């Protein structure tokens, strides 16, 4: 048990980001990120809980199948990792936690938590993503796939989730179609 500010990047001073009993993930590289989303908590929970929606805002998740349990993580050069996950905690409207099963290529664990902002600014969403890349050459590749830093990955995923929930779409300036260039 300890008291700590879990949102190191968002630096939100709200009580929603102070937690007395935070599980930070057991793996070698992990990150917690927070974002305020101007939509109701139940809607955000519902969208995330349908894991098939994850590829809509998680750039590395190519597809989700098998009732949301099997995630295909895509990387450079067509390389793919299969990740079998199981839900370890599910509190409707509040929290979803998952982790990889024994058979997965990577040890992975994550959770997402939704709380009403005390001052009517929407829902505070916190996400923890943690993983251990396997050893050896494959591990190096996986680390690359995960953009090395889960922090950056988690931050971008949360931004996309926020965009999608608030505006109905994910902002893009991807060349050449979304932003032609010379």
């Amino acid at each position, binding site marked *: 048990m300890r008291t700590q500010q879990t949102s190191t990047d968002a630096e939100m001073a709200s009580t929603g980001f102070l937690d007395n009993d935070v599980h930070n993930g057991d793996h070698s590289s992990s990150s917690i990120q927070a974002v305020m989303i101007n939509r109701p908590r139940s809607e955000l929970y519902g969208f995330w809980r349908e894991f098939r929606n994850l590829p809509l805002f998680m750039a590395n998740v190519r597809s989700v199948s098998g009732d949301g349990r099997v995630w295909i993580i895509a990387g450079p050069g067509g390389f793919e990792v299969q990740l079998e996950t199981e839900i370890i905690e599910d509190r409707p409207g509040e929290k979803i936690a998952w982790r990889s099963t024994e058979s997965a290529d990577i040890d992975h664990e994550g959770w997402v938590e939704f709380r009403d902002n005390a001052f009517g600014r929407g829902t505070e969403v916190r996400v923890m993503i943690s993983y251990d890349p396997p050893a050896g050459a494959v591990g190096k590749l996986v680390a690359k796939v995960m953009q090395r830093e889960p922090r950056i990955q988690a931050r971008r995923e949360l931004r996309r989730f926020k965009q999608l929930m608030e*505006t109905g779409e994910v902002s*893009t300036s991807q060349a050449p179609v979304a932003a032609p260039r010379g």
Partner: protein
Amino acid sequence: MRALTWHGKHDVRVDTVPDPEIVNPRDAIIKITATAICGSDLHLYDSVIPGMHRGDILGHEFMGEVVEVGRGNTSLRVGQKVVVPFVIACGQCFFCGKEQYSACDNSNPADKSDASEVAYGYPAAGLFGYSHLTGGYAGGQAEYARIPYSDFGPIVVPDGIEDERVLFLSDIFPTGWMAAENAGIQPGDTVVVWGCGPVGLFTIKSAIHMGAGRVIAIDHHPRRLALAKQNGAEVLNYHEVKVLEALKEMTAGIGPDACIDAVGMEAHGFAPDNIIDAVKQETKLGTDRQHVLREAIMACRKGGRISMPGVYGGIGDKLPIGAFMQKGLTLKTGQTHVQKYLPTLLELVMDGQIDTTDLISHRLPLEEAATAYKNFHDNPNEWTKVVLKP
């Protein structure tokens, strides 16, 4: 299509590039009928804003005809004439809810937001044609442009109105207006405007419209000073007078109530490649050209207001912070919340209350855009504002 693309310092070219397409449901494509070059574009031309990539299409002051609308956009119709704000805003985030549109949290794509989050503490909003720090969106100095969140930002203008009368609603008119608003002008106030470029001129027009007693404009280009005078300002040429002394004398020792920096960072000392490292290391990255801001702080009366529409990008030092505190000054600044002002300003244009065209010195085809950049940069006295026609 043809478009003006950036290739490096003082190297812009009109190239053939792919046409933009609808990507997101709320997008629209417009066929551009008029576009302008902004003083902000000169910061890109001078390569002092980081995050530019070779081939980027420039331009954030533009208007045109809607030619295609995404399926999620129920408010625009093909054939409508729209002016597009240079700030891209979603209309639904916390900041848009506060009408702080240039702080929109959603318009900068997730993969482009890291740099500004490091440099500024929080990610910047998306802007058209203004580096990958602010989204990497293609600009409007082109034949066509893709407009994200097009059901929210663009303003539909009445049929038949000449493009030139409304084009500057995209940026410099609202920017001058917000600059004057940020100066908190009271009737009878003395307002000083540094810079008689397009932004300074619209600031003068707005300040007078808001009831300033007297506006004093500072520059050194005779043509630009003449335009300021023609718009009702008294003028000072900073090559001819000592600005601080002149202002003190003109206000009989009280000093101006409000001081507006419509000049900005200019070219020196803002090293594009190391801004992010520099911020991280907290080293001093002297922009070295905050001359105007420093002068404004010194010139302002006790208890006065500073407004700063001029763009700064990096880190500055040697600000007279003591004068700022001891005199009890207020400073307001920011990229313009364009969307907030459009209905009011369109009405002023339609009523003929503000002349929006007197500053245009040159009208050229888009094909000659590179020459236009060179001249707007090298001969600012004659080239006061350029409008390009695709």
